[in-house]
């Protein structure tokens, strides 16, 4: 798949250090971004990097070294540094020898692509973005507007002392549209066309993400929000579109179920969890309607893969079934530390950071409700779309979210726009108020492209797919006076 990385892998095997075990992850990353803002072409930006992350285990210790020098000399130097740290952590370390995975899998995976990024010449991409800019600038009150296209390709070759040889190639596509409307001290923002919906695949994903088709409607909504009423305040029903469900899933299901957080690794930075190990198998996380899966098998979703970065084969698992918590999001190392089942979610954000437990694809499974029936069942509530603000406590319980756009629901009907819709709640009770789950027609495959976690810090892509969902008894409010 990548001859150069395979050649480096073969060279390394012949000089591999004499240690208990090792894994070597070789990565070649390329990316390109093209954007037009306010009708002006922004600098085209290309990125190219190759690097290796070597992890070695000696006794009860482990250490890593990251280098872009993939020559035998460079990798030998990395092996010395990693081994020094492994010996130090063998004395002062937290883990035991049995905690370190020794993967032996062999396999290949590549994102399916129908229309390759380079099939569309650069000047045609620029023309597409200029057209989108014209579609966004519909009114004098639109004061800022932009269209963006990003592409990335990661080649990964993973080998281990136990005989693993895994080759994976991922293609990412990230379109985005935004429109900002202003009048005096009131500014309103709308984003879409894939803004929170980066995917794997090629240019064929653009139309599926409504890019650039959403441009004019986004701009119209931004203008309309300037004169919309403030979101009403009170305890009421809310209906959340997938573009907000993404963050609700991410913050109040995904993070609290990461096993390394439960084990305390993240307590100094990303935080801990209100979930404890004894809750798995019995804890009621949500209503009977809540079904959540770890699903690496949707090829267009951001974190689909055949193996994670510890070499564990990936397969779909239920995390929450009929509202009951079943299994945590923990990779092979975390599973060994806890003797608990988990999933293949040990991931590196970039070539020079070590794998830790991440969310990968975490999805709310579709239910049977039609969105129009959800609305019809609500006497007083608010429909909310597109996350713009997120905040949650360090144990992932007390949250507050804000959305770009709201619509009042009154007596079973959607009414006018409202601006600055916010709501707050507590994870442990919020999901139990899940009253209806949308069907396949309301289901959308989206994600988060900047999930931050880890020490040293790592910002990574994760995928979230969800239908529209209806929650009762939510504390809703609008902007400041």
């Amino acid at each position, binding site marked *: 798949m990548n001859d150069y990385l395979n050649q480096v892998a073969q060279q390394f095997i012949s000089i591999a250090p004499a240690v208990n075990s090792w894994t070597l992850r070789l990565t070649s990353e390329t990316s390109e971004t093209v954007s037009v803002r306010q009708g002006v072409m922004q600098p085209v930006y290309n990125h190219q990097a190759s690097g290796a992350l070597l992890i070695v285990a000696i006794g009860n210790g482990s*250490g890593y070294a*990251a280098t872009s*020098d993939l020559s035998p000399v460079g990798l030998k130097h990395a092996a010395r540094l990693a081994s020094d740290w492994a010996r130090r952590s063998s004395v002062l370390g937290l883990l035991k020898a049995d905690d370190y995975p020794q993967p032996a899998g062999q396999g290949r995976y590549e994102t399916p692509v129908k229309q390759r990024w380079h099939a569309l010449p650069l000047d045609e991409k620029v023309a597409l973005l200029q057209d989108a800019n014209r579609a966004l600038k519909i009114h004098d009150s639109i004061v800022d507007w932009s269209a963006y296209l990003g592409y990335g390709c990661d080649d990964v070759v993973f080998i281990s002392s136990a005989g693993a040889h895994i080759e994976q190639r991922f293609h990412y596509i990230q379109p985005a549209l935004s429109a900002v409307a202003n009048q005096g*001290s009131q500014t309103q923002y709308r984003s879409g066309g894939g803004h929170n919906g980066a995917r794997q695949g090629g240019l064929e994903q653009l139309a599926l993400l409504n890019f650039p088709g959403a441009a004019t409607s986004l701009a119209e909504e931004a203008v309309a929000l300037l004169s919309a009423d403030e979101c009403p305040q009170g305890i009421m029903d809310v209906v959340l579109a997938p573009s907000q469900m993404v963050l609700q899933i991410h913050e109040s299901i995904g993070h609290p179920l990461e096993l390394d957080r439960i084990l305390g690794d993240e*307590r100094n930075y990303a935080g801990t969890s209100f979930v404890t190990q004894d809750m798995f198998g019995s804890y009621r996380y949500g209503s009977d309607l809540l079904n959540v899966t770890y699903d690496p098998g949707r090829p267009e979703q951001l974190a689909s893969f055949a193996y994670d970065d510890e070499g564990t084969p990936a397969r779909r698992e239920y995390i929450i079934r009929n509202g009951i918590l079943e299994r945590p999001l923990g990779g092979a190392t975390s599973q060994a530390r806890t003797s608990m089942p988990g999933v293949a979610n040990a991931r590196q954000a970039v070539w*020079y950071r070590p794998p830790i437990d991440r969310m990968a694809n975490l999805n709310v499974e579709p239910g049977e409700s039609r969105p129009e029936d959800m609305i019809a069942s609500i006497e007083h509530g608010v429909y909310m779309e597109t996350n713009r*603000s997120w905040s949650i406590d360090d144990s992932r319980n007390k949250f*507050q979210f804000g959305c770009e756009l709201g619509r009042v629901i009154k007596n079973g009907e959607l009414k006018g726009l409202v601006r600055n819709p916010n709501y707050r709640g507590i994870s442990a009770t919020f999901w139990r108020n899940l009253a209806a789950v949308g069907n396949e027609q309301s289901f959308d495959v989206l994600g988060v492209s900047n999930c931050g976690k880890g020490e*040293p810090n790592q910002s990574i892509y994760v995928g979230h797919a969800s239908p529209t969902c209806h929650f009762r008894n939510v504390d809703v409010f609008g902007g400041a006076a």
Partner: protein
Amino acid sequence: MQDYFYSLSDALFKKLDGDEQLLIGFSGEDSDFVRMNHNRIRQAGSVAQRTLSLDLIEGQRHAQASVELVGDSNQDLDNLAGTLKNLREQRALLPEDPYLNFSSTINDTEYHHDNEVIGSHDAVEQIVQAGGDLDLVGIFANGIQYNGFANSMGQRNWHSSANFNFDWSCYLATDKAVKSNYAGFDWQQDKLAAKMESIKHQLSILARPSKNVEPAGYRAYLAPSAVSEIIRMMAWGGFGMKSHRTKTTSLIRMLEQEQSLDKSISLREYHARGLAPIFTGSGFIKPDHVQLIRNGQYVDCLVSPRSAKEYDSVTNADYEYPGALDLAAGHLSSENTLKELDTGLCINNLWYLNYSDRNACQMTGMTRFACFWVEQGEIQAPVDVMRFDDSIYNLLGSNLLGLTEERELILDSSTYGQRSNSSMELPGLLVEELRLTL
């Protein structure tokens, strides 16, 4: 490293065609990262990064790239020659960039602070020893960071700095913990020990039964680390010229409604602090400081090279996001902050802030780590984590009672992409009311 960067740059300048100009940036580090949990090593490693950025210009057309260097000059030059070819091909397909802006005057600078501060293995051993029985969790980062700039007109700039940043917390139970940080250029074992002793004292207070605080408004003292989170939110699009001209700044009410902060609030971007490079990626030299807010009134913006061209202004920053903020001190004695607070909340840390209403600069976030209930100037009990939701115009405006005369230099411990070289110097602040909501 400096020699390698300059020799590579010189070789690339020889590959330019006709009237081409080339701007080259360099950022890299040789760092050790030791992640700890339960006062033991959880993950430890060494990272070497060397990234070269290129901006290939002809007239008003240009294209940019960044490339990870291998460290072998032949291999790197071969690779970079391919990158230049690709940039030339791309550039031919692009329109002119009206906001392309780079320095055409030669401004050479050089800063070195390259001596190793402490060996990472030794430091970790000292940390484990000082931590003793404490449930310590955090990250020790140590090593040297490099930044360079060269352009085909002959300018050369270099900044390298060896430093450490140990960011950690010690847990009593669940979410009861004390946060600390020790960072700088001169590692001293006794300073680390003193910080550990201070943590033990605070943990003894955290062991008291928690006070249940209901959502309401409370008089509060915010320590500098908590203030840093509020200032960081203001900085998120608040100070850039582009955000001001496109009306997306969170400080829009200061522009459009002549709203102001308390007269004691003066905030500047203090480039001269010198922790980050003084040069930009376009070859401009930053001024010593940019006064953002003076006596509560908005004064000036951070201006990137592109915005300077677009809005006919002067470049005063690399990006329109601050990296060296400096909030003026006040007159409250730091030793007497709890007496001045009298009864209310002593908040050492805030966390996960975001906007409830960006137009109103109204933000929400959580208390975290050691926060206490104080009565008659004495700490009574820890308080459980609470959500606040309040406006900057209250916290730094109508409800501000005072700023401390002593300030704290906070060196950013974040390591996204690479180790940060951002910093802030901030006082603590006393407010008449902080609104808690959940």
